[in-house]
């Protein structure tokens, strides 16, 4: 039976924490907003820049919770009734990424459209 060395473990854990901490300093993220009302996302297409991490703030104006779900974006997040939730997506390659509301998939649907930013913008 092996036994791990306590100091080795502590050292490794500290290194892990440092690796994490070094990644916490995030640059200012661009913020995009979606609204959910009457089980419909507005806008139904939201454009974001390619190859950048962005913050998507979703405001649920309905009296029922909804679950934002997207296999394309690899995200799943419950948004409580009359609350906001933030979802971090990207960096993504250009393309169309579908999302939907798990509780109302026929009406609550939309796309994140990822485009290369125009350098003149």
């Amino acid at each position, binding site marked *: *039976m*092996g*036994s*791990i060395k306590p100091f*080795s*473990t502590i050292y*490794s854990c500290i*290194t*892990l924490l440092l*690796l*994490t901490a*070094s*990644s*916490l300093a*995030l640059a200012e993220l661009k913020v995009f907003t979606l609204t959910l009302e009457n089980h419909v996302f507005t806008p139904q297409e939201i454009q974001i820049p390619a190859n950048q*991490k962005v913050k998507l703030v979703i405001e649920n104006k309905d009296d029922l*919770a909804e*679950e934002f779900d997207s*296999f394309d974006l*690899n*995200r*799943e*997040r*419950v948004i*409580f009734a009359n609350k906001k939730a*933030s*979802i*971090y*997506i*990207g960096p*993504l*390659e250009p393309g169309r990424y579908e999302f939907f509301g*798990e*509780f109302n998939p026929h009406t609550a649907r939309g796309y994140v459209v990822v485009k290369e930013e125009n350098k003149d913008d």
Partner: protein
Amino acid sequence: MNKLLTLILLLMSFNALADGIVVDRVYHPYVTVNEREFEWRFMSSQTDDKNILNQKLGYGHAIFEKVAVEFYIIGERDQNDNFAVSGYELESRIMLTEQGQYWADWGAVIELEKANANENYEASVGLLFEKEFTKTSLTLNLFGIYEWGKTIESEWETEFRLKYRYRYMPEIQPSIELYSGEDFVGIGPGFMGVHRIEGQRQIKWEAGFITEVAHSGKNHTFRFAFEYEF
């Protein structure tokens, strides 16, 4: 990428022994609010001279926004080839960071297992890591385990698990899995998938076929898990 390689090498540098079947599931560092699930896990390990069979039936529930607990009944085949309940396990998964917010996503899992017969216990703490690379995801688990009881020697153990997954389509997400503990390093193909039924109701499955590569001799483990979330 250098940061990631450093992390993997660091985690693999833990080299103590884990008893029983090292191959299990690779945990993702996420908890979904209100999630409830029934789970069935199956692990069968075949060596030159024996077959170990381990199954778990569990029920889990997210008790807070970022914390889920799950209770398992564990069954194992004994030396007389009888399959019977061998123990119980309580598990708690904790989501430590919001998905995608930082360079990588972090979580933790805490488990307490009691063997049915001999008042033997096993407590473990696992650090969970996941990093997305476009359509692929790398998931790492590192477990520190402490065992004690009437018929076993008290000891610390560690286990390391790795899964590199291609998110091809919801139902089919092929992966490569790696498991290690002292005297065991196994690698092999796996896959996972999800089928949405309605609302939060969905079925998830995953399977893997892991071959031991550190020693000569036969040591294959087949594992699968089904979850019904609602």
